[in-house]
């Protein structure tokens, strides 16, 4: 089962996704895996990660870091059972995949286009790989598309990539939820 949870910054989507997975599990702790995709850049990044760790505390998640190459990730199996998996956040994974090598010509349209295609393929293959291993998968993504600002070519490519990944996730998902001010809006399937 695939569930995608989206929402704005500060919308409460992470907390909702964690609690949803716990609710669906009804399991004791030890069979839940949190796939963390964010690279801890600087003090603010570390603070953000700490906040998320605090949110997860006591919810029985084992954290696995995976900033890129999701399709090579093999999840630990405990007690012979497929784990419940929460992946957070697709917006980080997409950026890490798109801008994966420093010093590459990200200002060149042709290079960017290929990088976007490659990143999209890799990410979706990674999701399929997780679905093969997981009992259920909750993917947290981000609504970053509505600020009305036109960005440089490389950021626009990022938006195109994440938009395409989100659309594909929505097609693939059994349930697609947008969290607004901590309130879940079930846009596909559900409510759970």
């Amino acid at each position, binding site marked *: 089962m695939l569930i995608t949870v989206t*929402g*704005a*910054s*500060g*919308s*409460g989507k992470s907390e909702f996704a964690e609690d949803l997975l716990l609710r669906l599990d009804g399991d004791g702790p030890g069979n839940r895996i949190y796939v963390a995709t964010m690279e801890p850049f600087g003090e*603010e990044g570390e603070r953000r990660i700490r906040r998320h760790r605090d949110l997860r505390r006591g919810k029985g998640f084992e954290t696995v870091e995976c900033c890129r190459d999701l399709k090579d990730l093999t999840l630990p199996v405990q007690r012979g059972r497929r784990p419940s998996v929460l992946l957070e956040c697709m917006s980080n994974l997409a950026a890490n995949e798109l801008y994966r090598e420093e010093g590459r010509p990200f200002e060149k349209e042709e290079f960017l286009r290929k990088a976007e295609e490659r990143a999209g393929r890799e990410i979706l293959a990674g999701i399929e790989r997780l679905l093969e291993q997981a009992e259920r998968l909750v993917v947290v993504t981000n*609504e*970053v*598309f*509505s*600020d*009305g*600002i036109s*960005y440089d070519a490389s*950021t626009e490519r990022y*938006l195109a990539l994440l938009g395409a990944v989100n659309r594909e996730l929505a097609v693939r998902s059994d349930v697609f939820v947008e969290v*607004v*001010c*901590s*309130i879940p*809006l079930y846009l596909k399937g559900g409510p759970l």
Partner: protein
Amino acid sequence: MVLIIGGAYQGKGEFALKLADGDEDRILFNVHDRIEAGLRAGRAREEIEAELLSEISGREELILTADEVGCGIVPADAVLRECREVTGRILCALAGEAGEVYRMVAGIPVKIKG
């Protein structure tokens, strides 16, 4: 209390006035501006949030409007980044207190709570 959120220029104020039968004293317009002003004056999120919560406490007739500001690329500017994050968190808290929450889209109120 009723909370009306949505993007800029979606008709939140107009809808609030309609709900309030034109009585502006029942409306707190643009709560996101107060949050930003508070942060820029060096106040902590907790202080701003507590003040707003105490202001709405026991006033069921109140109607609040606020922009949803978190649906974009994370701003490079640290203050703006904090503003949108804190605005989101405080709106979560206000939505928790609200009896009804509406999200305005192109002038159409979509009831998402209550």
